[in-house]
Each structure stands twice: as structure tokens, then as C-alpha cells.
């Protein structure tokens, strides 16, 4: 059994490996209780991960293996710190008055929050009790797991759609595209506010066809407030090296401003609010 610890010091950018060696594999976790979970780090002052000022909790565990992932140390539960949900909520409570004053709230990111469904549900529910706005950042791959009670404690979804083409999606993430699209449609039918996020990786996801496909899929959805184009960057490459993983994008440049503009324009042309 892993040792229960307080949330780690250190920033979201620091690497964490092998902190909880006894943790289950991320595809075999059973956390019906959700009293405990595995976390990577947290950040209290993000203006990027939802409306207002966000406290972002980065939880561990993800089933995707995106080739450009900038936090490969969040893939495995065993790399995270084993913490109690009560502890997380106590820490959140320390910030709640300020977050409310600043029109912000809690965002759970990862990793993939839905890997630890009960744990994250507990935290979202606690945040709602504090009167905080809640958001989840997810790939949607595990969207089928999100039952009604889960979605009830989430105000806002940041949904990563990495590709519209099943082939590309599999090449980039190692997984199927369909669950993500299914989840997006479900959110649309529930009118849940969504920001779709698309990571623009030169040579990997920048094909105009690929972009158009996502744009056509998203454009009719009235719940999608924004499509956000996120330019690829190299800030995570040191982690690939440190963990001894083969990193495909060692030489991939950040997209040029022209390329970013082209993609944003493609989304706009299809009728999306893009930025």
C-alpha cells in the first residue's frame, strides 16, 4: 500500500517519478471509494485553464500515450503522490475565498481525471460545496465512465480533441477516437459549456484535412464556447529524456505564427469561435 502524503511541494513543471511504487496500473485501478488518489502537482494561479483564476490540480494516470505529451510523468499512478481527498479539499479550502473573489474555481487536469473517477468526483463535489466553479480537462477517451452524477458536479469541460481522423488519432495517442467524439456529442446534448482544445503539432496534427474535420464536427455544437489552438512547445522534452523514453518530437519546431493563424482561420471559417 502506498504511503499517504501531503500534496507535494514543487511546481507543475517539476518532474515526479516513482513516488508511489505500489500503486496499481492506471488501467486497473479500482477506486469505488475515492477517499484517496494519486496526484502530480497543483498550481493556484492559472488564467488559462478555465474562466477566471484557476487552481489546477494535476492528477496522475492516463491511458493515452500522446507522442507530444509534455507531462509523460503523469501517465502512471505510481509516479504520483498518494493523497487523501480530504487533504486536497482542505488545501482547496485555503484558496476558496480568493478564487471566488476572482471569479475562478477549480480545474482538474492530468493525466486524465477520469482514470480516478471516484476520487475526482469527490473533489469536484467538495469544490461545489464551497461554491466554486469546477472544470475538467479531459481527452474524453473515458467519457463513457462519466455518469450523470459525475457531470452534475462539473460546470465546464476543457475537451482535447487531438484529431478528427481515427488513423491519426491512433497514431498520435495510441487509442481510439470514437469515445471522445461520443463524449463531445453527449456534452452537446446536455448543453454543458465546453472549450475544445486542439494541440497543433507541425507534421503531426497540422494537416488541413485533419483540422477541417474537427472544425466541421464542432461547429454545430452550441455548447462549445471556444476552440482553442494550443501550439506545440518543447517544455516537456526534458522529461522524456529523463524517463528514458524515445521522444519522437525532439526536433519538431513550435508552429510558426502563420501556421497558427491558418489553423485558427480554418476553425473560424467553419463557424467556430476560435482563439
Amino acid at each position, binding site marked *: 500500500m502506498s*504511503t499517504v*502524503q501531503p500534496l507535494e*511541494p514543487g511546481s507543475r513543471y517539476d518532474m515526479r517519478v516513482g513516488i508511489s511504487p505500489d500503486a496499481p496500473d492506471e488501467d486497473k485501478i479500482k477506486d469505488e471509494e475515492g477517499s484517496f488518489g494519486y496526484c502530480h502537482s497543483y498550481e493556484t494561479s492559472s*488564467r488559462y485553464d478555465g474562466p477566471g483564476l484557476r487552481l489546477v490540480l494535476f492528477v496522475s494516470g492516463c491511458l493515452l500515450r500522446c507522442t507530444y505529451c509534455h507531462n509523460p510523468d503523469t501517465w502512471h499512478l505510481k509516479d504520483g503522490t498518494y493523497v487523501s481527498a480530504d487533504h486536497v479539499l482542505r488545501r482547496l479550502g485555503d*484558496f476558496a475565498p480568493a478564487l471566488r473573489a*476572482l471569479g475562478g474555481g477549480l480545474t482538474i487536469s492530468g493525466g486524465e481525471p477520469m482514470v480516478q473517477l471516484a476520487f475526482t468526483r469527490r473533489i469536484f463535489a467538495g469544490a461545489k460545496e464551497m461554491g466554486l466553479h469546477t472544470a475538467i480537462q479531459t481527452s474524453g477517451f473515458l467519457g463513457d465512465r462519466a455518469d450523470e452524477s459525475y457531470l452534475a458536479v462539473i460546470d465546464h469541460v476543457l475537451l482535447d480533441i487531438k484529431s478528427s481522423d481515427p488513423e491519426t488519432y491512433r497514431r498520435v495517442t495510441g487509442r481510439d477516437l470514437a469515445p471522445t467524439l461520443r463524449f463531445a456529442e453527449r456534452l452537446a446534448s446536455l448543453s454543458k459549456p465546453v472549450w475544445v482544445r486542439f494541440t497543433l503539432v507541425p507534421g503531426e496534427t497540422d494537416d488541413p484535412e485533419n483540422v477541417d474535420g474537427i472544425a466541421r464536427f464542432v461547429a454545430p455544437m452550441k455548447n462549445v464556447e471556444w476552440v482553442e489552438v494550443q501550439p506545440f512547445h518543447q517544455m516537456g522534452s526534458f522529461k522524456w529524456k529523463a524517463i528514458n523514453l524515445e521522444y519522437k518530437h525532439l526536433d519538431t519546431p513550435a508552429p510558426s505564427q502563420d501556421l497558427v493563424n491558418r489553423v485558427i482561420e480554418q476553425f473560424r471559417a467553419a463557424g467556430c469561435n476560435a*482563439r
Partner: protein
Amino acid sequence: MKASAALRKEVDTGDCWNGFRPGDWITSINVRDFIVRNVTSYQGNEDFLAGPSERTKEVWAKLQPYFADERKKGVLAVDAASPSTLLAHKPGYIDRDNEIIVGLQTDQPFKRAIFPFGGLRMVEAGLKAAGIAADPAVHETFTKYRKSHNDGVFDAYTPEIMSARRSGIITGLPDAYGRGRIIGDYRRVALYGVDRLLEVKREERAQIDDMWPTDEIIRQREELSEQMRALEDLASMAKLYDHDISKPAANAQEAFQWTYFAYLGAIKEANGAAMSIGRISSFLDIDGLLDEARAQELWDQLVQKLRIVRFLRTPDYDALFSGDPYWATECVGGMDLDGRALVTKSSYRMLHTLYNLGPAPEPNITVLWSNHLPAPFKRYCVKVSKDTSSLQYENDDLMRPFWGDDYAIACCVSAMRLGKQMQFFGARVNLAKALLYALNGGRDEVSGDQIAPQTLPVSGEFLDFEEVMAKFDTTMEWLARTYVHAMNCIHYMHDKYFYERLEMALHDRDILRTMAFGIAGLSVVADSLSAMKYGKIRVMRDQTGLIVDYQNVGNTSTPQFGNNDDRVDLIAAGLVTSFMEKIRKHPTYRNAIHTQSVLTITSNVVYGKATGNTPDGRRKGEPFGPGANPMHGRDNHGWLASCLSVAKLPYKDSLDGISYTVSIAPQKAHLSEAQLVDEAVKAFDAYFERGGFHMNLNVIEKETLEDAMKNPDKYPQLTIRVSGYAVNFVRLTPEQQRDVISRTFHGQI
């Protein structure tokens, strides 16, 4: 005691006061009353502002070669032969045809004066560093015939104080130079004229003629006589510049000029570390009297003068207070007691000088932030910060209940009622070193010398939190006592040998005195104690048994200050209260009220250099966090967490201020520039509402600073806030530049 009829009698001021709403200020010296009755609170935005005039640009152009030369050579010129007084130097000009505000410290711009009354050693060390020969006549006078403040203090110091000073546990004491942190109410000269001020001083003096001559009464009589002489000399100084300041200023130009003359007089008489100008922009509120271009011109030219104040300092002094600061601190904003914002168009004009003349560290513009300030003004301040990194913010809602609505900031963070209060400045003690003394039985961790009284060092292999706290408490008791003792000696002698006769002439006779103590290294100590409490700290000793290093062998990392974690934040807050309580136990010179600051200026680097390894993992020689800042890089969960930690430090036990510097590197965000400004305003409101005292804000990228280190000529005006003040980045030492760059940079606020 005689009645004080003369203080209140009607005065004939001709038509100088026509058009102003009358009040108590007519019959007594009461600038605050004048302001609240006559201020025009401005609720609009910055659209009315004007650019620099041709004359302003001409004067500014004349000064540029001096600035450039100074960056290369340092001190440009010194008058080594004439100890500075109100009348020691002939009038000086920059560009007579274009200067609408006149007056220089000496007869030429950038020529520094000497102040041997503070201490001859300091003067001669300063001259030596500047490569200028000392004057034999001055040397003879101040060794044979005239004693200095510095000589006096060392006559009264004890061996214990001397060794505490030498070891660096108490540093930066004003025992060899002017203490500063006194703000004359310079506005009085413009509002009343020197004749009226003299008359009131005569009356104040007459009132105590009947009193039995105790030490204090004799001292007051002598001081009042000195004050009157200073006022007469001030009038003579103004005459040298062809101004008669005996009557109240009759127009805006005169009001600016006379206020400046009063300030100029102060910096000719005293070389205090900090020489604030006060709170003039709600006073010199000339709405409707002049066209905008002319009004801005007065501000621009006054600020030009405030940017070229220079004092001769020594290399040691520069290490503590680097970048040649003099803290011509000016406060803008704040609310009055009736709930009206003291924001005037002149508040905007003062800020606008940062565009008309470019960014600069001086005057040290301090925004007195209240959540009730008009929204457009808040937005403008944030915009100015973003563009210039030249502003600091202090919490008016926190200070107003203590100091009323006519206080100003001396130096960085020290509030005082104008004309009614002064402080005895006391630099600071190194609290981290004190902790190490507690562990080592009073021995210095670097030299091994016995500095504090000998006590039993901690024994055993691991540090026990409770045991260390008990020992630390004893060490702090000793330190507080030694510190108050030293301060009493210093200020006794400063009053005796280097009395600020003009600044005090611009105060009431009966004032509130505070004695301002300070601590450095708060976050290091808090993190160290937290490490002992929540981790397991093994000590390492050298062959003499001195503990020289520490290792956390516990399996969890320990809470660190700056992450809004009560486990350690309350340790920090408790230390502030605990040291204050110990200071309060010891009586002060002239019954001054004890106060405390958590402020380091740039001495966090010097203190760190002189301090060994600490139990928090900080290595020997590594700088402390400045002021109340968390240690560099440890507040790594965003600015909100960092701010909330610092906001927990109790102002009531730190009434001399709590300095907190925040550096923001603009980051990706979805918001437009206008939205970001609005969000920043909300963030300020939230921080100050939660009791935050100070926000010394930089908006800059690390890369810019790195480039400026390599190419200083590209960044002549690059300004950065350090700890309660701002500096020209390129004028810092490389060591200090590296310290600034190594500080935590937060993302978008």
C-alpha cells in the same frame, strides 16, 4: 503657560488664498484640513493627460549626457571642500532658459555634496571610492574641532554592540550616516510661507519657556531655536534663486517651486538613507487653474529634479542599498476619512511622468491602494506598472485606521503622519543568524567567535523543534535587548550632532516618535523551523563542535513559506509577533513607540553572504528572500499562494511595514489587454482585502533582464522594483543582478 492665541490668529495673506475654501487651516498649521476642504477628487480616466513640453524636453536632453556618464564612471563630481548646508553652495542650474522649477543640491547637476556631521569616515571612504582627494581643511575641522554623529555613537557603544555589529547579526545601523526616514511637511512652505511658520515656531518656543528645564525641555528649546534658524536659512537659499518665500505661494508655479525648495533644503541639510517627499500630488492639485500642458510641465520638471538627487555613499553602503537610491518617495491615491478618494488629476500627472520622461526608479512612486479607489485610476496604475515596473502599492485600507488620511511613506513601507510624526530608523537584524546562534550556544557559525552570551548548544544528532524554539527564544531576547540598546545610543547622538533642523521645522513641536526595528531572513527562519517540526534534521559539526550543516533525513518534504500553508505561515507570523514583543520590553530614547519592519532593501544579498548553511537547506552565502518574500523558487504554486502567505503576517506587530516584491512574467492567457488589466485590479483588491500590506510589482520577462546584463547600453532606463524601491537594473552589481533574476517569476496575475 501662555495661551496659544498667536497660533490661531487671523493672518493677512494678501490674495494668495483667494478662491480656497476656508477652514481650520487658515488659523492653524493644518495642511490636511486644507486638502480635504479643497481637493477635487477625480473620477475619470487618463485621456486628459498631455505630453512633455518643449522646455521639458530641452532640460531632459541636457541631463542625458550626465546619466550616460554616470552609468560608465559612477560618481561624476564631488564638492569635497564645502560641508553641505542650506547655504553652502551657490545656486545651480541645468538650463536656465528652460527650467521652470529651479534648484540643485550644489552649484552643478550631479555634483555631490559631503555631510561630515554624520561622520567623517563615511565622507572620506566615499571620496576614496570615487577617486577624489579628501579636503585637508574639512579633515582638520572634523577631527580637531567638531565631533560627528559617528564619533558620538562609538563613544556610547558597548563591546557587546560592537561585536554584534561586526559579526553581521545587526547591520546597516545609521551610526555613520544620516538616519533619514523623516519627512518634512514640505507643503507647509507653499501654503503658509516661511514668515508664518517662523511665527508659529516662536510661539511654540515661548510656550515652553515657563516649563522647568528637564533634559527634554532643554533639548526642545535648543531644537526649536535650530528649527527657526533653518527656516531663515531656507528663505535665504530661495533668495539665491530669486524667490521670496516669506509669504504663501500665490500661484501654481510658486506652489510647486516652494514645495520643492523646502525638499531641496532638506536634502542639502541631511543625507538620510531615505528622503521621501511625502504626499504632494493631492496637495498640488491645480485642477482648472492651468491648461493641461502647463500643469503637466510643472510635474515633469519637478520630477526631473527628483530624479537627479545624489548623495556620496561608500561601497559598503552601496552593498546594502544598491543602485544609488534615496527614496524620494511620493504617495498617490488613498482615501480621506470621509470616504472620498484623494485621487486628483495630479495623481495621474505624477504617474504620467513615467511616460513623458521614461521609466525611472525615483521618485519612488507609491500608490496607496484602497478597494474604494475609482476604478479608472486603479486600471491606470496597473497599466503603468505593466509598462514601466516603476510603481509600488501599499494598503491604504490597512494603514488609514492607524495613521489617518494625511500620512506618507518614508523610504519603502514606513507610514507616518505628515508633520506630526517621525521615526528613529534602525535598519535590521539577521534573524537567520540568530537562529544559528541559538543552535551553537551563541557562537557565530562562520567565524566561530562567541557573539551572543554563552549558552548550552544543542546536543545530539537531530534537531528537536521544541528544544530549538526554547533556545531561539532566549537568543531573540538577547538580540532584542542589544538592538534597542544600540538604537538608543544612535539616536541620542544623531539628535545631538546631526539634528535635521529643517525637516523638523516642518513638523509640529509635539510629535509622535517611533523607533523602527527590522528583521531580515524571515522566510529562511520559518522554513528552517518548519523543517525541524515536520522533517528530521540531522546536524553536522566541525572539529570545534560548531554546527555547520544540516540534512533533512525525513521521508517527507516539509512545508515552505509562500504556498499558503498554515503549518509554516503561522510560524512566520508568530516570529514577527514574538520578536516585536521582545523589542517592546526595552525602553526607548525619547519614549519612542517601538515598531518593526520586515524589509531588507537589497541587504538580503549581503545578509545571505554572511550567513552559514541553514536548516531549511539554504546553502552558505546564498541570498535570503528579500523583505517578507518567500525564498526564491520555493513559492512555486503560483502568485496567489505566495500572496496569501505573505498577507498572514500581522501588520499590528509590524507597523513599520512588510515588504513583498512580486515579479510577473507575462504568460499566455486568453484575455485581451484590457481584460488582463481588469483581472489584475481584481487580484490587487483580493490581496489587499485579505490584509496584504505591500505589493512591489514587476512585470518583466527573465530574458529581458538576462539580455540587460549582457548589453547594459541597450537598457539605460530599465527599471526594476527590488524591495520597497526601484533601481536602474543596469546600475546594480552583477551579484545583485543575478539575485534579481533568480527570484521567483510568476505567471499572469
